[in-house]
């Protein structure tokens, strides 16, 4: 007994840390914005501290003594009205201090609002194999309290409710269901939002996986000239291989633009062909072309699916109407020659560096160089902008 006492006397640090100096109530409460709170700080009598020497701070700011209430010799309260939303997700720090500023105890306040009903819930399936869904927080978005979202789904006419588990696809407010999805039968899907102040549930959407199918962009997109026709180009592409066994009729869209333009022109009436001729183009001009696919009629369905992403841009140029005259004495054609010569020099330099020599020389290689040139112009411009912003 005596040895225990000695131990306690000679190890004050252990003793003082094993019993709390003071206790605040409530501890870590969740509160509505605009509400009031009365908190109490009760000091252990052994500390010998009197409550009228203590004070409160909230997020580092001392609270006026007019808000305090003396409960007892070792208990002090504080009343806060019309609370503002929390300043950080880890909670606002309400701290009780002794006269010299030492921290006696603390409590973290979580001030916010219950979540509102999530909205704009949409889902899509990639090649009928999986299901991805996204939604938007309701109202003005998430309040200051951490909100958890759970995507739930069940087969409409039978089956148990299941929860989506993979929220880590990188984008917020999305979830991914990788497998074990039934076809030809509708699902009911919804999102539940919850935080410490309440919950809210989105509207339920009903869908059949086969009605929300998207696929990969077409591959092997080739753009080529139509003989010497200076206003036309032919575009050819492959149908997405992932859906080749599903007996569907895809429809396609093409868009194209001039090399130096940002405006795309859309060709919408391509149907289910895998080639198309673009006409009415400008001669001697480089065009960028993209194709995308919509899987229609999967497993005999007549409904359209969801458009895929656009394919990577493919470049091609239309022929010039007149071939350049070599050896001409016309000053204008001379200027054209020097411009052409300069361009050719740049092109050959690029070929040596990037294309392993001239063995695969073709007009396609020239087009690839034009694409690369435009990309590097854009990069230089972006760097320029970034540098300007840094200077500012």
């Amino acid at each position, binding site marked *: 007994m005596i040895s225990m006492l000695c131990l306690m006397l000679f190890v004050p640090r252990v003793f003082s840390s*094993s019993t709390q100096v003071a206790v605040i109530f409530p*501890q*870590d409460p969740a509160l509505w914005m605009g509400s009031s709170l009365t908190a109490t700080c009760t000091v252990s009598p052994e500390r010998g501290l009197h409550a009228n020497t203590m004070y409160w701070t909230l*997020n580092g700011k001392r609270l006026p003594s007019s808000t305090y209430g003396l409960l007892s010799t070792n208990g002090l309260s504080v009343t806060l009205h019309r609370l503002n939303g929390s300043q950080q997700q*880890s909670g606002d*720090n309400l701290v009780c201090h002794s006269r010299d500023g030492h921290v006696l105890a603390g409590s973290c306040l979580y001030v916010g609002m219950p979540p509102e009903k999530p909205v704009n819930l949409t889902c899509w399936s990639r090649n009928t194999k999986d299901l991805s869904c996204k939604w938007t927080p309701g109202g003005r978005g998430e309040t200051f309290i951490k909100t958890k979202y759970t995507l739930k789904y069940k087969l409409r006419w039978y089956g148990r409710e299941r929860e989506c588990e993979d929220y880590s696809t990188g984008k917020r407010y999305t979830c991914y269901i990788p497998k074990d999805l039934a076809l030809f039968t509708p699902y009911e899907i919804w999102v539940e939002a919850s935080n410490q102040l309440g919950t809210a549930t989105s509207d339920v959407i009903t869908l059949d996986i086969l009605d929300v199918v998207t696929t990969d962009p077409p591959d092997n997109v080739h753009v080529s000239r139509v003989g010497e026709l200076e206003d036309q180009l032919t575009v050819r592409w492959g149908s997405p291989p992932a859906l080749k066994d599903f007996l569907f009729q895809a429809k396609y869209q093409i868009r194209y633009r001039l090399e130096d333009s940002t405006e795309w022109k859309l060709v919408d009436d391509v149907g289910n062909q895998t080639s198309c001729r673009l006409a009415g183009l400008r001669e001697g001009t480089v065009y960028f072309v993209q194709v995308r696919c919509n899987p229609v009629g999967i497993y005999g369905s007549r409904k359209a699916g969801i458009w895929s992403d656009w394919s990577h841009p493919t470049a091609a140029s239309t022929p010039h109407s007149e071939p350049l005259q070599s050896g001409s004495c016309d000053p204008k054609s001379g200027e054209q020659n020097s411009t052409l010569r300069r361009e050719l020099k740049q092109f050959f330099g690029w070929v040596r560096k990037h294309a392993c020599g001239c063995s695969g020389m073709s007009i396609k290689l020239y087009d690839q160089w034009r694409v690369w040139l435009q990309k590097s112009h854009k990069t230089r411009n972006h760097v320029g902008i970034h540098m300007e912003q840094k200077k500012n």
Partner: protein
Amino acid sequence: MSGHVKNMCPQLTISQAARTLLSLLLVAAIDSVSAGVVCRKQPCGSSLQRSLKLTKLIHKESVDLLKTYKLSQGDMSELFCQMSINNVPDPNISGLDPSERMLSIYSHCKAFLPHLKRVTEQQTDLQPPSSSLLSKLSTAHNRTNGLANQINCIYQTLFPNLPIPPEPVDGPTSVPPSQNVFQQKVYGCVVLKRFKEFLSRVTRELRTLKSQVCTRRTTFADTNALF
């Protein structure tokens, strides 16, 4: 075939010193594996130099880590770091001779690991998922584990006759039981503050150790002579 070997062998003689060296190498090899960490033999100076560089890196990152931590806890968090909490490893390196001090460094590294892990778990609930604090905590944990392994190997190499005790010599590694949020904020700050101070001490200590235990021509014979 044996006749061929017979012709070769009479020319070979193994000196007494070489036999001793071979035995020592065998023992050291067995010891280095038995600790659970496979250590490859490396020159003393370059091993300690590598550990010193790693320590400097972790220390530099710990300064930023503590700063990021404080910013994430809201105002008034400076005071939190000054509160006293039990069971958090202290930053001091103990011991009189190089082997004890090296062992103290190793033990402290191991002792900090569960606390760093606990702080990471707690802050995962308190911070938004995109918070850089979480990745910095994870990096600190991984690097400290790496440093502990390095020190372990160097210790085994330099002091093969001194086993590393299974439990840390400098105190318990138990993390505190469940805490309220305010206590978690305080705990995390104290852990990271002491962690930063510890690394500063390790940096100085490794410099000293390098000059004490690594001479230009340290061999196993010389190392053995220390004892």
